[in-house]
């Protein structure tokens, strides 16, 4: 009952096996190459770019808070706590001009200043600005002194008053430390838009434009050249990365 194994079949099997083994060997490398390119926070962040945002208050709808809910979902800001201690990385604020009575609705988040007071005052250097302009908190060396919260002119930071659960692996948070908008750095490093911007575009308002302020050909740079925009508290000369149109 000896089965004859033809040389052709044998060669075909050999080639198949070789291809599978080669594929299994090379594939992770190819995938890792892709991941390493995506996460250039590991060393490739440069000051050649400066990430920023232009918020068009004329397009921001008063009743809409999709940006806020998208941020909460993205970063797991879903803990059920007292409102006065709840973390808010982005919030909707309604304002009225005292002279004219005109009303505006706008999202307020960390303004990612060029000269951030929170970074200046932080005793340990936990508050820091990346080369690409994103202001972050290193949760490992934040001692929870809250001096940055005293210094921020935009009240953009929150202190975590209680133990947290269900954190997102890409957005570490912790009791006893201060946190604020990261400009969705994990997405930006992966060549995606921040979650709030994506949500605003998804509902069709397109009130938030994100991009590289240093690239003259980026949409945000072109728009900033066209329209009149302003920074919040321009008198402080912090040169925020977030600017507002129509305010």
């Amino acid at each position: 009952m000896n089965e004859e194994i033809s040389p052709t079949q044998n060669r075909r099997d050999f080639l198949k096996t070789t291809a599978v083994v080669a594929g299994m060997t090379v594939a992770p490398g190819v995938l890792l190459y892709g991941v390493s390119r995506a996460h250039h926070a590991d060393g490739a962040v440069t000051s050649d770019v400066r990430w920023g945002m232009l918020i068009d208050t004329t397009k921001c709808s008063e009743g809409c808070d999709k940006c806020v809910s998208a941020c909460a979902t993205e970063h797991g800001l879903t803990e059920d706590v007292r409102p006065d201690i709840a973390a808010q990385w982005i919030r909707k604020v309604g304002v009225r001009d005292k002279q004219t009575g005109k009303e505006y609705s706008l999202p307020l988040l960390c303004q990612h200043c060029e000269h951030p007071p929170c970074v200046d005052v932080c005793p340990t250097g936990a508050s820091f600005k990346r080369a690409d302009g994103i202001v972050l908190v290193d949760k490992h060396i934040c001692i929870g002194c809250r001096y940055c919260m005293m210094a921020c002119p935009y009240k953009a930071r929150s202190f975590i008053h209680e133990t947290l659960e269900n954190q997102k692996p890409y957005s570490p948070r912790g009791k006893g430390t201060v946190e604020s908008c990261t400009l969705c750095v994990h997405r930006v490093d992966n060549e995606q838009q921040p979650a709030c911007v994506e949500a605003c575009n998804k509902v069709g308002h397109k009130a938030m434009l994100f991009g590289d302020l240093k690239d003259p050909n980026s949409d945000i740079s072109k728009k900033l050249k066209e329209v009149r925009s302003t920074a919040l508290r321009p008198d402080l000369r912090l040169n925020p990365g977030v600017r507002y149109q129509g305010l």
Partner: protein
Amino acid sequence: MKNINYCVIEGKSAGFYGGIAVSVFFILLGLFAAYNMEHHGHVITGMNNQIVWGMPHVFAIFLILSASGVLNVASISSVFRKIFYHPLARLSALLAITLLIGGLSVLVLDLGHPDRLVVAMTSYNLKSIFSWNMFLYNGFLLICVIYLWFMMERRMQRYYPTVGLIAFIWRLILTTGTGSIFGFLVAREAYHTAIMAPLFIALSLSLGLAVFLIVLIIDCWEKQCPLGQGILHRPKTLLGVFIGAVFYFVLAYHSSHLYFTGRHGVEYFILAGGGIYTVLFWGGYIFLGTILPLLLLYHERFSKSCASIAAASVLTIVGGFALLYVIIIGGQAYPLEIFPGMEVTSSSFFDKGIHAYTPSGWEILLGISGIAIAALLTVLALRILPFMPCSLADIDIEPQFKD
């Protein structure tokens, strides 16, 4: 150097053991409060994302200011060569150390991560005034220890005036640093002013001297050592001058703010419509902490009695504490002006209106424990080493140390 006999306290009286027992009790309560704040988080305190610095900070800054101010008695002796104050210089430097340790303990135990103290001591951002203060506070402790050593060691006494001068300059820089913690905050209308530094220096002088006089009176009462009217008279006059100096800076602070149209809102809040902050300012600081002690110190009817000097010192502390509460908490309670020229109509993050704050028992316990730490360290030090003259009776002091 003239001879003065210094003694340790006997340490057998009910007052000594009572003082230690009360101090240990409050320290344990404070540690329990700190443990709970660490375990449950700051949710158990009255602090929130609006009022980020609360009662522990008022206590801590009160103690730190008192620490730098209390050294003034020694400085007057060694820097300004008023020999009259020399017998009290050791106690002055000792209190500077113990009060500062008490204040820093409260500050550290209130951190979100007190377990990361080693990070704070090893990882510095040299642009931060907080970082400078870590050098200034630690340096102050070291200088005070050397100062005490030189005062107590005969062989080193020729260097004592030099160390005294260094300590004096260091304490001025230190209090400038403490005041600048607030003065450097560009964002908040109540703080952003350079006058915070001299205001805090003046406040440290009045608080420090008031604390010193109270400790002196208590110590002499406990040791049943004679305390002459002469030894109290000069510091008493000086206390009045310091209270006046604080009032001058408070006046300059508010009048300059009232002149700036943009700051009328925060001024109206503190001086007229701020509820508890307005009451504490006028009732606590102006009436109890300024007018009453000045009356007690300068009115002929009261100024001769030891009780009125003690009462004036206590009132100075009450007033200073009230002023610190108004500055630290009141300054945060007034909302940030993120949109100048506009009013906030809606916000989910309390951008609109005055921020509420009610200190919790945990915060108060933690704060009191700072005072207890300072008290315990002082009592133990007085028991171990001779910091106090055996007698402060006029007959023993005046002939030797007349200026």
